[in-house]
């Protein structure tokens, strides 16, 4: 730690400290929140931006990747229309029949947000800004504590600068039929820093699909830092899906912090297609037995895109099950990283954990790095992991072309088949179909702008 503090601060780190001093008074929240922010910025001052000598950031050196501290997005809401959202999301995701909770450049947009009447009593939503100004007791007791990662550089920055987000409660035994769609759209023509924080509590026995979309109307060099704290109470069942189509110059830093209680079932999925640099951290804690987590994802990268998925799954109690299946397709000079850490604590007997990450490289300059990390302290467990990296199979391609299919058709079919195995794990059929259609468009070269 001393070694880190002694390293000379970069301009970006100094800039962030300055920005905190400048904006602190304008950020939402009472004294309790201000103290949280104060502690967070102190902890960030100690940690600095993560760099390659920090093991968890080995492949994604933010200290060299972030060239400047972008000005935080101001609190005036840019006006967007529903037609803009349609454009940013595409017809399929816009047309899910979901509840919409919209954030424009990180600010809650009440105009475009709605909870549809038939489920209005089941989903309680307030904006984070409003909650921070007047935090209820239960919020203070739980916020920033769902699977806390005090040593996470990016989470510390998020807590210091958080401006807005959604505080959502899915009520006990609610069985939601409509997805709750959190839509974060960047609309500004100039690159700015957007800091969002969502806090989602799914009560006992409730079932919900929560979709987070990060999309853009303009494509400047935005820096987004988004943290979602999600807790599943006993027997809750949640499909948690992320769609990331940021602009081509954007940096997207995302953290999911998930806590799973007894007999709960968590299904996470992340679809990464945009941004120049993205870091997707997924931290899952099993806090109750007989619970399950199935986490998967697809990333499609080209040009010089860099996408890092880093997971940390902690089995802390007996009888839990986790599955991960990530598929990544990389073209041009793109680079994909998968780091999967699995920890099985001494008490966590009967843990069943399996992790798979597969990369498909479409060019000689594409790169896929996979780093599994298993820490197992219990003896009666089943844990497995695997990672592969490869190209399209020449023999298979010959076979298909001999059946008359063009090279393009063959590649499209084989790549869709490759990623399809992960997409199949998305329970919501409409979301799955929307993603597959987007993957198809990506293969046709029509997406990525």
């Amino acid at each position, binding site marked *: 730690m001393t070694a880190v503090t002694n390293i000379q601060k970069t301009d970006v780190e100094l800039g962030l400290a300055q920005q905190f001093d400048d904006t602190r008074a304008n950020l939402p929240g009472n004294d309790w929140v201000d103290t949280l922010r104060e502690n967070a910025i102190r902890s960030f001052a100690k940690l600095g931006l993560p760099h390659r000598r920090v093991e968890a950031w080995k492949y994604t050196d933010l200290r060299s990747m972030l060239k400047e501290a972008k000005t935080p997005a101001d609190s005036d809401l840019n006006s967007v229309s529903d037609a803009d959202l349609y454009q940013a999301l595409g017809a399929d995701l816009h047309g899910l029949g979901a509840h919409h909770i919209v954030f424009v450049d990180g600010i809650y947009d009440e105009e475009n947000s709605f909870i549809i009447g038939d489920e209005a009593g089941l989903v309680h939503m307030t904006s984070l800004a409003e909650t921070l100004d007047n935090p209820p007791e239960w919020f203070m007791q739980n916020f920033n504590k769902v699977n806390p990662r005090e040593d996470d550089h990016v989470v510390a920055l998020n807590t210091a600068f958080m401006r807005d987000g959604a505080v959502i409660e899915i009520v006990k035994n609610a069985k939601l039929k409509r997805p709750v769609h959190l839509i974060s759209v960047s609309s500004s023509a100039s690159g700015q820093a957007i800091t969002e924080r969502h806090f989602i509590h799914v009560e006992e026995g409730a079932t919900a699909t929560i979709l987070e979309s990060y999309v853009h109307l303009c494509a400047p060099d935005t820096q987004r830092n988004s943290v979602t704290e999600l807790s599943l109470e006993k027997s809750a069942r949640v499909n948690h899906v992320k769609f990331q189509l940021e602009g081509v110059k954007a940096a997207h830093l995302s953290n999911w912090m998930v806590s799973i209680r007894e007999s709960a079932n968590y299904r996470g999925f992340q679809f990464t297609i945009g941004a120049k640099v993205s870091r997707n951290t997924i931290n899952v804690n099993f806090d109750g037995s007989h619970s399950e987590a199935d986490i998967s994802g697809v990333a499609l990268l080209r040009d010089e895109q860099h996408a890092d998925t880093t997971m940390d799954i902690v089995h802390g109690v007996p009888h839990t099950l986790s599955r991960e299946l990530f598929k990544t397709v990389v073209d041009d000079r793109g680079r994909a990283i998968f780091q999967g850490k699995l920890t099985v604590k001494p008490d966590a007997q009967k843990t069943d954990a399996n992790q798979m990450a597969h990369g498909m490289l479409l060019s000689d300059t594409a790169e896929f790095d996979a780093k599994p990390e298993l820490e197992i302290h219990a003896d009666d467990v089943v844990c497995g992991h695997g990672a592969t990296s490869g190209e399209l199979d*020449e023999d298979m391609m010959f076979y*298909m072309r*001999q059946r*008359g*299919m063009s090279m393009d058709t063959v590649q499209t079919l084989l790549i869709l088949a490759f990623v399809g195995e992960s997409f199949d794990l998305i329970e919501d059929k409409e979301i799955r179909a929307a993603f597959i259609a987007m993957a198809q468009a990506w293969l046709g070269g029509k997406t990525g702008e």
Partner: protein
Amino acid sequence: MLKIENLHATVGGSEILRGISLEIPNGEVHAIMGPNGSGKSTLSYVLSGRDGYEVTQGTAMLNGTNLLDLEVDERAAAGVFLAFQYPHEIPGVATFIFLRHALNSVREARGQEELTTPDFMRLVKGKAAELGVKDEMLKRPLNVGFSGGEKKRMEILQMAIMEPSLCILDETDSGLDIDALKTVSEGVNALRSPDRSMLVITHYQRLLDYIVPDKVHVLSRGQIRHSGGKELALELEKSGYAEFVGEDAA
């Protein structure tokens, strides 16, 4: 009609085909037999256009088109169909989807309209029933988990759907039991037609009891050493290849 003239080809720098000339008129079935390493499979790959098989001399004309000028998929559209010795498994691509892409690709290249979904389904299900391919198999990823016999049947089903003008069957009998051999052979025989040529590559005479050829050629060290009628296959079976290819034939 297929007309091959003085075909030479190398693989990894060594010459495997050393001047093959062969004519298969429309409506005829020719068998190529020969010992291991004689160039039988190479001939099938050279005709279908596989990467790594370099033609150094000669021509291969199918109904007036030089196949050697075309890409793999263009050759398929021109009518070349290769039934593989070891058909590949295509995980994640349902057989129906595969067949549909295959058929519509060649139809498009041949200037024909795409089949509508109902027409396509009728066509596939009809042909599948004739070959004893169950509907359930058509929903599964192509060849994944299929038995050897099922894979070969699937090759013949594809052949039936694609309506090629040249069928090349590469060791289609390998891995088949007698029952499967019969079904597959019946499927092939049903496709014999006055506007189609067939080239049957095999090690053993057994297949030729079921698919009776018009001519048999013996391939050895990259050349056709001997040609004859269907009875040649029986003679080969009795006396072995040595007598027909000769020690000094090269």
